[in-house]
């Protein structure tokens, strides 16, 4: 018996145009809560666009047109009543190349806590420590918390970005190929963290490495040229794909 999963994010007929380029074509997907959902597909198929539409980061880009609905916890994020910063706070982001904030390691984590009202120095200290530990970075940085974040290695920067993301207590963590800029060991550390995260968070992982999706995913969405070809539990999609295109992609015949 498969129990019915709670749905955290749901898109309804989502269309996105960049200029005249039709990127997402009527996407309908459901992303279950407290699971790791991998979005797979060839490069340029709209994976990143899909991910960045979930917290309206696409608003920052020029010449973009969006239609359709995205429901997060049942609420349409394009609704004019939605408080955008508040909605974004629910969704942490790990980007392809880590971009820490231009400040110290400590302040990278404390920044989010401060803007959401935590000002007490002692509370901040213990919270920063806690989230750095969660991200597996504490032992490496505890003696140089006030060094610029730019001095960390790329792998450490990515874990710092994870720490700062979970510091604002999001419900969802959006990951845009978070290991693609990292060396294998750093990538492995991030993968381990993602596996740990899915117990408490809904994780959406965009990846172009099929093996990574197989290792990590509970649920899979296969995008192909802006359309959803197949979605479902990872076992089913990988072992028993229904669509011939999915089958071909998994076998490595199309990419």
């Amino acid at each position, binding site marked *: 018996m498969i129990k019915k999963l709670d749905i955290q994010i749901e898109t309804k007929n989502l269309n996105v145009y960049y200029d005249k380029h039709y990127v997402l074509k009527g996407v309908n997907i459901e992303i279950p809560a407290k699971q790791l959902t991998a979005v797979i597909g060839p490069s340029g198929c709209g994976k990143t666009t899909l991910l960045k539409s979930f917290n309206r980061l696409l608003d920052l880009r020029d010449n973009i047109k969006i239609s359709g609905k995205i429901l997060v916890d049942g609420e349409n994020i394009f609704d004019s009543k939605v408080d955008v910063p508040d909605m974004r706070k629910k969704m942490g982001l790990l980007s392809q190349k880590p971009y820490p904030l231009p400040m110290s390691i400590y302040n990278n984590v404390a920044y989010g806590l401060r803007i959401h009202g935590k000002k007490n120095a002692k509370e901040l200290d213990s919270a920063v420590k806690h989230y750095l530990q969660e991200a597996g970075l504490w032992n490496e940085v505890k003696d140089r918390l006030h060094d610029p974040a*730019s001095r960390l290695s790329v792998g450490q920067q990515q874990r710092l970005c994870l720490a700062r993301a979970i510091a604002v207590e999001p419900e969802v963590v959006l990951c845009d190929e978070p290991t693609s800029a990292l060396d294998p060991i750093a990538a492995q550390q991030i993968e381990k963290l993602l596996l740990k995260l899915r117990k408490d968070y809904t994780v959406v992982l965009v990846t172009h490495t099929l093996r990574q999706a197989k290792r990590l995913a509970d649920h899979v969405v296969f995008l192909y040229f802006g359309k959803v070809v197949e979605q479902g539990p990872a076992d089913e999609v990988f072992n028993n794909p229904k669509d011939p295109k999915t089958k071909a992609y998994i076998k490595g015949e199309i990419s």
Partner: protein
Amino acid sequence: MNRRVLEEKIFKTLMLASVFIVMGSLVIIIGLVIFNGGSSLTIEMFTQTSSGGYYLGRGGGILNAILGSLFLALPATALACLIGLGIALYLQKEFTHPKVSGFIRLSLDILWGIPSIVYGIFCLMIMVFIGIGTSLLAGIIALTLLEIPIITRYMDESIKMVPIELKEGAYSLGSTKFETAVKVVRRQALPGIIAGVLLGLGRGIGDAASILFTAGFSDRIPESLFDSTAALPTMIYHLYASPYPLVRQRAYAAAFILVVIVLSISIVSRALSKRYTKYVIP
């Protein structure tokens, strides 16, 4: 010898020659002002105002010009920063269509290239129109106009170069636009902005042509915005025009002081930039 090795050697020599021309000029300029003006560099130069009329200007010091330069360039730079920041923010794509901002950027670049004497004449026209004479105020206006394009373009470029991913990172932590701009974008853009502001200040403090007609000249320290004032560049101009070698020596001493001021601005600018650059995300 192999042709490619020879080619390499020729280019290396050419590059070295270019470097020598620049470094040599610097050394010669500094050497020249010290050699010619050194004997006139007395304490009185810093503590007394000019006396004996400016063509004869043998007596007193050039305190009025040093203070005049600061009174002109500091307010002008502050004003140019205020106005420049407004323009630079307006130029960002969050506020303005790229076609419009492109046109404004082109205009600023043209303004940057306009010789400072033209700013001087332009301001003279305004002064006649509003009915004020040569004064501190008119000089400040001329220098502000001169500095705006420099400071604005530096601010604009530094803000524009902030990677969108950095802003995305800030936004996805739930920052508002204001928090993103003030707490994140500012920190990333700060070294470039500082460089621009100090470049503007350096240009303003060293420029003679724009203040020649606008600030005029005076032996005294200005007491109000409507008093004429001397500045180091105009002081050098007037002293050097003298037929007396002793007065011309004082022009070199004034030049030395100006060079030291500009050099210090440059050093401060580097130190500040370095201090803030270490946080910048490459």
